[in-house]
């Protein structure tokens, strides 16, 4: 039996509430708010309380899907990235880089958001970067 209680940060939105995962034999059993965390002070919203449900959900996507002839077909990461890169290149060549926009997210980390804007500016070559929380 392997019982762990792992401190983490809620991945649901940009607030950054501290959560504790109860892990039994490598499987998430429950989520609790971190009482001493300066952001949420022992409170959570319904999404935070149910983080373990997201992770364990049978509906969770675990590998990329490619829409082929109207149906989603499971594929590997290399193939999916290659396909996306090829399609991006095709669009940029045909319509120019400003035909592409990048939407980053509050659900990813600061560093990942930075990478997102760097990717759109340096790789794609457009300033069309936006964020769902820019209200």
């Amino acid at each position, binding site marked *: 039996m392997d019982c762990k209680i792992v*401190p983490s940060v809620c991945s649901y939105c940009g607030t950054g509430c501290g959560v504790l995962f109860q892990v*039994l034999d490598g499987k998430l059993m429950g989520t609790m708010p971190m009482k001493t965390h300066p952001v949420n002070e022992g409170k*959570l919203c319904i999404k935070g309380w149910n983080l373990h449900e997201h992770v364990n959900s049978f509906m969770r996507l675990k590998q990329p899907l490619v829409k082929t002839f109207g149906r989603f077909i499971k594929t590997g990461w290399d193939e999916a990235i290659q396909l996306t890169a090829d399609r991006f290149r095709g669009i940029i060549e045909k319509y120019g880089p400003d035909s592409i926009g990048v939407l980053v997210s509050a659900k990813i980390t600061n560093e990942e958001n930075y990478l997102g804007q760097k990717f759109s500016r340096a790789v794609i070559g457009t300033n069309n970067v936006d964020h769902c929380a820019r209200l």
Partner: protein
Amino acid sequence: MTEFRQKVFTEDDMQAQVKEWLEQGKVDVFLAYKMIQGHPLPYCFTRNDLDEVNELIPGPIRYPLEKIATKIAARYPDVKIGLLVRDCNQRALNVLYVWNQLNPENVETISVNCCPSKLKEHADCSYLEPKKAGPYKKQVGVDNNMDLEDMDAYGRQERFNRWMYEFKKCIKCYGCRDICPVCFCKECSLEHDDLIGTGDLPPEVPIFHLVRAVHMAGRCIDCGLCEDACPVDIPLRLLYKKVNEIVMDVFEYETGTSPSQNPFSVLGDTVTLKPKPISEAA
């Protein structure tokens, strides 16, 4: 934090005891607290790493350790679990014993100081004096520090209005249920589509809270974790205190005080069902 540290005087004894228990096989896992990244967090100590036990601390924070224990026991019914208990944890354990969620033979406890209050000054627990209610809350809502007599002194309509003010703030996070050490049902009425509109916001008031309150009869051990976890400061403790007062008046059942007081034998066994508190209600 240093203030709490100074008061802890039995930390070494506690660590020695836990080490001994783990070595002898009296417990397989011990639930207590440890400083991790500057936060006192619940931690499972096992005999795989006995040196870790030197970092065991009794607080100052309070999590539902017995709820973690029930989750372990559900998967491994024969594992011997040890845990640190304050008074509230002990009451919760008693409730879990009588409802067959934990086997008392598989549970070992070490008692630690309880919540600080006017009665118990030398306590190290997170449940300090509750926050003072603001003037608006006092005027139209329910002060969390109020006692039952003061609440009952309000007229029926006023009581209803005040509770409705509190219930209407609910964001339906289910935190009160999720943190509750004595909420163990596999299927919860609060998630039943026919009883409560699941997925609907705002929640159906007051039925959402009253369903939970009714289910707390004979279960709630007044640990206050629900109120701690409530993001909108609903005085849940007071509500469940009232429910358990009725249980006490009608059935003479004192929740959580003994591990052998079976709730199933209460009905019809010792009580003649005279609707005492109901007829007296104003």
